[in-house]
């Protein structure tokens, strides 16, 4: 069908949506036809079929398109009826009638035939959905749609877009639409006024268009494009720098989280705890467990697993302290060996009890995606949360160590055990508490890491070495040192990575640590007094 016609229909439908619905109620089988058309469409004719559905204004059009996009539009093998798969886990799937939307109950996946979609089609689909969204009530949605359209415009949607431009009330959205059109204009028609529209835009597609213009023969266009590009260069550099810094801090925050627990068990108690990584792992698995307990509410589960993770790891810590470490007072080497054994046991335990496979930990809505600062800079949310979390944990620990009775006793015991004892401090109790605290914090790290990386038996292994590096680099027994060290190493690493590559960057950082320790044999913030000797 011709594009204008499609457009007018769209408009018509959207203006009198209620009527549309009413019309849909006493369905005339148009739904089936549309779906059949889509199901039987050849790769070439798929887009038309999609447009048709979009234009039909059928109340469930959107549902169909989305189901199609998610590979959930299927056809029952024997009846040929077209259904939407509601739940596609396991061997029997729940399906609903596509047209009426009524639930048809379970059906073996053997009997279902998926209506195929591929990447190319999905692209077109995205365009179509965006077009639909351009007519949504919510200007946010419209702007989002407009942004999606940038660089996706082809002559099929050009006129409707332009048509839409005139009616668009909100400036921001219009602005976007203009840019979207301009990109098309520059790339296809090489129009110079379009270049001016794109000037100053940070959107990568906009710049790509300008770059293509720079490459063109037309000198005027070339000049205009160059000028337009120049105006954003500086801004881009700034954004680049900001981005790298953010990357560095976020990696740093991960290191800090992983190491801070160790800074207590190792730094304060002098226990070389090789099982630290496994305590982190326990925290991560707790998150997974929580999400299993509360299916469908990953967010809530995640929040609950903060205390839970702490508790689990802390209890494990106490178990380790009571069963092993208490017998190894003042023999750090032995603690290393014993805890190494413990870590082996814990790993294999998870393998046999839960599974050697990684576990899925879902990222809640509010943590996924990224915070868009501008077209060139957006900060990933999950890492931002982790960064914040790390700082919170650190602050919390500082409070405990500086302000609470426990903290006081811990410092007393670590500085002079005998003296502290004689002053009536129960050293053993303090040991337990300290180790539990350190382990608990490791658990917290696990909860956070579950949002960034694998939750599997090897999780701990990947962090134990780095943790020790951070603690030592920062200066054993000094929490501030750990914080600074973690953030520094993280940032250095990310600064190096672009030109050195991931591997070399890591190597350089390690060599840097080695040389740094030559200069300052006791780390960034050396501990003063007796405790430092030996």
């Amino acid at each position, binding site marked *: 069908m011709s594009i204008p016609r499609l457009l007018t229909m769209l408009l018509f439908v959207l203006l009198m949506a209620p009527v549309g619905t009413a019309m849909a109620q006493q369905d005339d089988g148009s739904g089936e036809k549309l779906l059949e058309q889509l199901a039987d469409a050849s790769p070439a004719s798929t887009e038309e079929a999609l447009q048709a559905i979009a234009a039909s204004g059928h109340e469930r059009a959107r549902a169909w398109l989305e189901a199609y996009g998610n590979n959930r539009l299927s056809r029952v093998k024997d009846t040929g009826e077209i259904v939407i798969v509601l739940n596609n886990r396991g061997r029997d799937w729940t399906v609903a009638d596509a047209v009426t939307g009524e639930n048809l109950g379970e059906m073996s996946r053997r009997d279902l035939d998926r209506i195929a979609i591929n990447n190319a089609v999905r692209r077109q689909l995205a365009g179509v959905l965006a077009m639909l969204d351009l007519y949504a009530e919510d200007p946010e949605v419209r702007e989002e749609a407009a942004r999606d359209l940038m660089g996706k415009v082809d002559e099929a949607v050009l006129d409707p877009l332009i048509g839409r431009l005139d009616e668009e009330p909100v400036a921001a959205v219009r602005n976007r639409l203009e840019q979207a059109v301009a990109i098309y204009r520059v790339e296809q028609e090489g129009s110079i006024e379009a270049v001016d529209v794109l000037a100053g835009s940070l959107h990568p597609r906009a710049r790509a268009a300008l770059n293509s213009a720079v490459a063109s023969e037309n000198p005027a266009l070339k000049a205009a494009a160059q000028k337009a590009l120049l105006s954003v260069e500086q801004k881009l550099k700034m954004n680049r720098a900001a981005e790298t810094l953010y990357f560095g801090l976020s990696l740093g925050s991960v290191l800090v989280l992983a190491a801070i627990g160790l800074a207590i068990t*190792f730094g304060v108690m002098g226990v*070389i705890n*090789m099982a630290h990584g496994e305590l982190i792992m326990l925290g991560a698995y707790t998150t997974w467990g929580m999400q299993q307990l509360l299916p469908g509410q990953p967010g809530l589960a995640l929040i609950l697993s903060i205390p839970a993770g702490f508790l689990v790891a802390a209890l494990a810590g106490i178990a380790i302290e009571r069963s*092993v470490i208490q*017998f*190894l007072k003042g*023999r*750090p*080497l*032995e603690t*290393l*060996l*014993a805890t*190494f*054994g*413990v*870590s*082996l*046991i814990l*790993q*294999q*335990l998870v393998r*046999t009890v839960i599974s050697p496979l990684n576990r899925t930990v879902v990222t809640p809505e509010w943590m996924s995606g990224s915070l868009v600062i501008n077209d060139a800079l957006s900060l990933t949310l999950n890492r931002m949360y982790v960064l914040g979390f790390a700082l919170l944990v650190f602050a919390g620990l500082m409070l405990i160590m500086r302000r609470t009775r426990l903290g006081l006793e811990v410092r007393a015991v670590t500085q002079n055990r005998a003296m502290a004892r004689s002053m009536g401090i129960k050293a053993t109790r303090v040991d337990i508490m300290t180790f539990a605290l350190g382990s608990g914090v490791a658990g917290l790290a696990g909860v956070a890491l579950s949002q960034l990386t694998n939750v599997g038996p090897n999780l701990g*292994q990947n962090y134990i*070495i780095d943790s*020790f*590096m951070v603690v*030592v680099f920062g200066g*054993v027994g000094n929490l501030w040192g750990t914080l600074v060290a973690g953030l520094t190493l993280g940032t250095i690493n990310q600064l190096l990575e672009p030109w050195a590559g991931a*591997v*070399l960057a*890591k*190597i350089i950082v*390690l*060599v840097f*640590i*080695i*040389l740094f*320790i*030559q*200069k300052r*044999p*006791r*780390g960034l913030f050396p501990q003063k007094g007796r405790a430092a000797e*030996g």
Partner: protein
Amino acid sequence: MWLARPLQERSTQLFLGILFLALIAVTALHLALPEGHPLHVSAYTVTLLGKYLCYALLAVAVDLVSGYLGILSLGHGAFFALGGYAMGMYLMRQIGDRGTYGDPVLPDFMVFLNWQELPWYWYGFDMAWFAFAMVLLVPGALALVFGWLAFRSRVTGVYLSIITQALTFALMLAFFRNEMGFGGNNGLTDFREILGFNLRSDATRLGLFIATGIALAIGYVVCRGIVTSKLGRVSVACRDAEARTRFLGYRVERVQLFVFVVSAMLAGVAGALYVPQVGIINPSEFSPIFSIEIVVWVALGGRATLYGAVIGAILVNYAKTVFTGVMPDAWLFALGALFVLVTVFLPQGIAGLLRKRRKTTDDGSGPSDAPTTAEATA
């Protein structure tokens, strides 16, 4: 002469005696008895024992620094692996044009990532003498530079341990990179000959096994010689009261450096003998976990008693072999439990246990008897 001294002391004679007896026994049982005879020692077992002996030598090297010098090195795997790579490079060059691509010079992995010519650092490794020299020199040199940096600036305790760990970790990452020209993750493998002997013949295996045994003997005597010499007592002095030792006029950092380098070279030799027997060298030998494991063997056997290190290494690895076969799904539990129990209930390691027994029979703690030192350190 300091190397002769240990030969006069009972414990060393005993150790060497048992070692050579074992070598002879295995050789005899391997050659004399027919396949299938219950007591026949198969070529597989011989190689396995050869591997254990390499680990034993490595453990002795680690015990020398951790037990007597008080330097807990968590990076000795690096020296072991470097020695191994030196040997591996020699073995690679020995393949010659028998490789898959039949290139006379380039090892297969270079051909098939189409490198044009041999990197400079591969030169010379086609000559046995050069390669074997490198087995000693490369780990030695690394230990020298690293140790000089560390000891000069008096890096001690966990700080030292952690940077040794950083060292081996960095090397591991480096060797994983294919640009390095050491075969990346696949490492060096598919060896054919050593000194003209076919590596896939049982005779060669037996030879390597015996060679390893002798190397262990020599290594043991060298270490024993050091620890029973005045220098050995100075090392113990450095371990227990560094400042005091300085005020007596000893240059602590040089003592540490000397012992550290010797230990590194021994580790290198162990690695070099290890590679032809297991048939592959790959960056995982650099992994910090492996280095920690070595320390575990030593502690298990009993620190500051060289024979303890030998026992520990052989025992743990034998346990591994058995467990991984008998209870594949649960062997880590056993191993982990072993570590925990020994450290908690046998702080002196197995050697400590033996010594307690021995104390009851005779009280032979002569002026320079390692056990005394070990006891006092606990």
